[in-house]
């Protein structure tokens, strides 16, 4: 089980990692600033295995891959949202950060509660209940399974 960090709708990638940090030389130097504008304590409180749960259109805006990358670097196990903006969704899968659409979870859980996601089953378990997710298309799940897009280049 991992702890839930909850964010509203239309969270843009500037909120996930602001512009002034993305030119830092490495993701490790950026990650302490994740979600700084929305929840300054996020980066220090999130533990490996925790989850980000959001409403509609998570990750809209800039194509900066630093956004999913800082979440992965902080150990976020997956992002579960009502919907994702296209570039964030694709970037997350490409770097091996699980992302999945779940329409019902957001309205039924609170920040700080615990949940578990099975990507394989497409099921979130929280509050003793199960929430069905939209499974990834096979092609994209395949990229995730091999550890991201670059892994295929190194085969």
């Amino acid at each position, binding site marked *: 089980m991992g702890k839930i960090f909850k964010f509203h709708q*239309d969270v*843009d990638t*500037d*909120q996930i990692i*602001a*512009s*002034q940090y*993305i*030119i*830092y*030389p*490495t*993701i490790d130097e950026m990650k302490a600033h994740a979600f*700084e*504008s*929305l929840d300054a304590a996020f980066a220090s409180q999130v533990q490996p295995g925790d989850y980000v749960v959001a409403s*509609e*259109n998570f990750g*809209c*805006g*800039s*194509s*900066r*891959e*630093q956004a*999913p*990358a800082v979440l992965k670097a902080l150990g976020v196990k997956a992002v579960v949202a009502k*919907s994702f*903006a*296209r*570039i964030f969704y*694709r*970037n997350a899968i*490409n*770097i091996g950060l699980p992302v999945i659409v779940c329409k019902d979870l957001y309205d039924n859980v609170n920040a700080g509660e615990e949940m578990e996601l099975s990507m394989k089953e497409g099921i979130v378990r929280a509050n003793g209940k199960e929430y069905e997710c939209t499974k990834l*298309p096979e*092609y994209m799940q395949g990229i995730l399974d091999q550890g*991201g*897009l*670059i892994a*295929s*280049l*190194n085969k």
Partner: protein
Amino acid sequence: MGMTMAEKIIAAAAGVKEVKAGDIHTVELDRLMSNDGTTHLTIDMYNQLKEPRIADVNKLVWIMDHNVPCDSVKTAASHKKMRDFAKEHSIRFYEGAGVCHQVMMENHVTSGELIFGADSHTCAYGAVGAFGTGVGCTDYLYAMVTGKSWLLVPETLRFHLKGKLSDGVYARDLILSIIGMIGANGANYMAMEFGGEGLKTLNMSDRIAVCNLCVEAGAKTALMEVDDITLSYLKAHGREPKHCFASDDDAVYAHVYEIDLSTIKPIVAKPHFVDSVVDAKECVGTHIDEAFLGSCNNGRIEDLRVGAELIQGRKVHPLVRFLVVPASAEVYRQALSEGIIDTFMEAGAIVMNPNCSVCWGSCQGVIGENDVLISTGTRNFKGRAGHKDSFVYLASAATVTASAIKGEIATADMI
């Protein structure tokens, strides 16, 4: 069954006769653009590959534009990495030439191409009927190494334009109106296609402004029908179309919108969402600290002319910083030759070198706590232009310039 422009471009790039929305295809890319926002990370990943290689270096265009000139020691390190790599691998490289999308439009993009850009506003290339889409650096690296990528064929929203924009109303007002109408995720995963008689009233600068902002509705790409205006733009820049695709009459659209251009009014997008649009008149009187005329969206010569005409013989309000940032060196030099730069400086504007400037909030011009900016930039997200507790209003070049003169949000008819 007929195909849309987006489907035809993907089919050609995939080497198949027909594709339909929802299919996933492996495609050959024509061009790969990357800028200093993420290239340092791409290079780090490249160097970790077991067998690093570049499929076709002629497809690559690297453009330094986000922090130009360099503003810190950390940025300098990232810039040096990009500059050195480009030199080592003979990659086409620009520094000081302008904002990446404007430089691409002036020098590289042509009709029918499929282009990945490591920047979300790559959808601007649809202005000449090219399929441009924004990607992250992993996608970019994969395409750089293999020359290929995978694409989910998008559904298409068709915007059928008719009529003509009224005097004092600009393409910027049009696209902000459309984003307000369909919402920040109204075109998520989709292509936005523009056509109809009304399109012929929009010049190439207008078209770039419209296509460039489509990602703010979530679009994967934007596409405009190729016509005489497109062809003469390409010719003037020494290029020929690769292919002029047009949607079939029986193409399948997710939705068709009819837009009467004459109904569009001056628009302002309020903090902190691009789809938070209102009639500009509703914001009149709102205090501002800074005004910005520039960006890949609205920093072309046509936009500078609009601003210069308004501010000629007038002064920037004493309590406002008015930043004027031509989108490219070509635009800058044209503005110089027309006396436009002189007009802005005479009025007290701060004229800067071509770069992304305050549109992305990490270089000169950033705003402080509680500051209010009115901008022709691309986004008004919380903290986008600087401090997390600051405010950005988006508007046309006319509304921004009028506001810079008044010291509060104003429309051009009030000047």
